[in-house]
């Protein structure tokens, strides 16, 4: 699936920038550590926006296209930030047969975003994840650390309302 590129403005803190600088400095000029640096960067920012990839490219002296090529090849790299409330819908086998796709579709419709995207206000992000091991509660979705099990599409509006304060 093609990854959607976030249009949400990039926010950076001095602390985050310093962390990334340190990782780049530690790994440069060994370009074989590019993936490692990208993983660390995603750990720092939650995703890999243009500014972060550009910084990695400049720091490690590799073309930006090489960084972006890697970022779009591997599923683990995100081009959209995580929201204040990160929603995950389990699409593991048990949840899927119990209708998790309908829940994902309903969330997508209500939030106006697709999977692996973030709302423009930065409040919600949506992820379709693999089995989280709570098959007895299928279908399952999580909002940050809150777990909601045995839900239906009709429950989605109520759950979202709890986080719209």
């Amino acid at each position, binding site marked *: 699936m093609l990854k959607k590129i976030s249009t949400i403005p990039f926010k950076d803190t001095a602390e985050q920038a310093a962390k990334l600088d340190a990782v780049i400095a530690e790994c440069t000029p060994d370009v074989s550590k590019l993936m490692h640096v990208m993983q660390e960067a995603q750990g720092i920012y939650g995703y890999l926006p243009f500014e972060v990839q550009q910084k990695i490219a400049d720091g490690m002296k590799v*073309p930006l296209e090489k960084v972006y090529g890697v970022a779009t090849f591997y599923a683990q790299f995100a081009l959209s930030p995580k929201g204040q409330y990160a929603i995950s819908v389990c699409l593991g086998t048990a949840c899927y047969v119990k209708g998790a796709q309908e829940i994902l579709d309903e969330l997508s419709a209500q939030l106006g975003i697709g999977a692996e995207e973030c709302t423009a206000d930065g409040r919600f992000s949506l992820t379709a994840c693999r089995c989280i091991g709570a098959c007895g509660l299928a279908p399952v979705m999580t909002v940050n650390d809150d777990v909601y099990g045995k839900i239906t599409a009709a429950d989605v509006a109520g759950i979202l309302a709890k986080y719209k304060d």
Partner: protein
Amino acid sequence: MEKMLNIKINNIPCSVPYGTKIIDAARMVGIEIPTLCYLKEMNEIGACRFCVVEVVGARSLVAACVFPIERDGTEIFTNSEKVRKSRRTTLELILSTHERKCLTCVRSGNCELQRLCKEYNVVEDDKYDGSKPVYELDYSAAHMVRDNNKCILCRRCVAACDNQGISVIGANARGIDTHIASPFELPLGSTSCISCGQCIVNCPVGAIYEKDDTEKVFSAISDPTKHVVVQAAPAVRATLGECFDMPIGTDVTGKMFAALRRLGFDKVFDTNFAADLTIMEEATELLDRVKNGGVLPMITSCSPGWIKYCEHYYPTELDHLSSCKSPMQMQGAIIKSYYAEKNGIDPKDIVSVAIMPCTAKKFECGRADEAGAGYPDIDYVLTTRELGRMIDAAGIKFAYLPDEDCDAPLGQGTGAAVIFGATGGVMEAALRTAAEVITGKSLDNPEFHDVRGMEGVKEAKYDLDGTEIKVAIASGTKNAKVLMDKVKDGTADYTFIEIMGCPGGCINGGGQPVQPASVRNTVDLKALRAKALYENDANRPQRKSHENEDVKTVYAEYLGEPNSHKAHELLHTSYVARPMFDR
């Protein structure tokens, strides 16, 4: 001594050095293994699986382009039933996602995929029916179009871009979504692409091609109110014959002028004139910089791909660039000023067309500060390929044309101008004039062999009656980087540097006829084409720019001196720092 291995290819015994790739070993016994993704020393990735061959004892077919021979007694079959079947299946699978609009494709008849389909008897172009992504065409760059619907993902364009040190395209996403594009899917026109067109001449199919201006030029020619003037660059005469199946390196100067006249251009001029003019302006600028403590080293500005590269990648070093316009733009400016005035033609009625070996010229003619006479110096740039297509469309039998000369008064060119088309040529032309100006003596032999040849970076030192001149030459922007890093850190102790955007110079420009990988991998295309220019130079009565009578006349009648106020207005330009990515 390297270890030799005795092997057999298709039962033919031969002896090859340890580690030889199968594809090279096969060539030694006269067998050309077909390829799609392989470009020698540029793209050796074994990705397309078209070059597969059978190695006796191997678990599966192997890719001949990357498989090294390491065992004595290796037996290889390059054309067995199993091999042919595999290659056919590869083609059928490629066709399953290829937009098969061959009739309207610019590469029809010159497409490597099309040729292989014919050779391998592919009879069903839709044997496999599967998911087929649809891509929007990218028209954002000034010079070219990218059509990913025709892309076969061989990555030759990516290798060509990397080979230039640009790398603004690559493979994005994965699986069926894999596509060649720029970072963050930016349109090519918003990147630091330098418009060199090396991706175009390396593409095996019709996925990348120049923006075609032939219809606009045909329309201008048909318009009785327009005075349509054409000029042809030095390097075009060394390659145009390839469009008509002539041997690589055939000098077709005379037939080229004859063809342009038969196409209906009102005047047929030669960019050689402006190349000589460029030397007069550039040499004067250089001597002025040397005498008056100007910024050195001074760097040539003829190659618009190089200029765009400098603007994106070395924006702090722009004052090293000569302020001279390229010969094409100079010729255009003189056409719409001197020529127009002399012949009583309103410059607004002139359509100025340039035949160029270059795609970056399509970008250059639209730059700011390239309208010396108040009108764009150049209205349309056509590549060598486009001219070839126009000649075909007009039914002109190129091979049977007589040799003709170009028109006066902007037609005369010296041997120094002709060699502008090969790396080191501008330097040699400048040296011929500088040597005579500085020493006041006539050169016995105008040839400077140290600056010739296809090496990426060259250096030479000359002592001209006590004046020491140290020069450097680079072709291909990856090689330019070597010199520019020195310029940037202040260690470039050269007086003058020549840089051409394309490897080998204009003879290998992105607007030149496309030669398939089978030729590129086995023939020294650049050297053969350059040879035609050096022979042309050697056979000219005049070989130094300052001996050009037409140029002398233009100075006497119109411009005054080189670098005069009028010359500056018409023949010089300015540069701008450009961002790497424009989001």
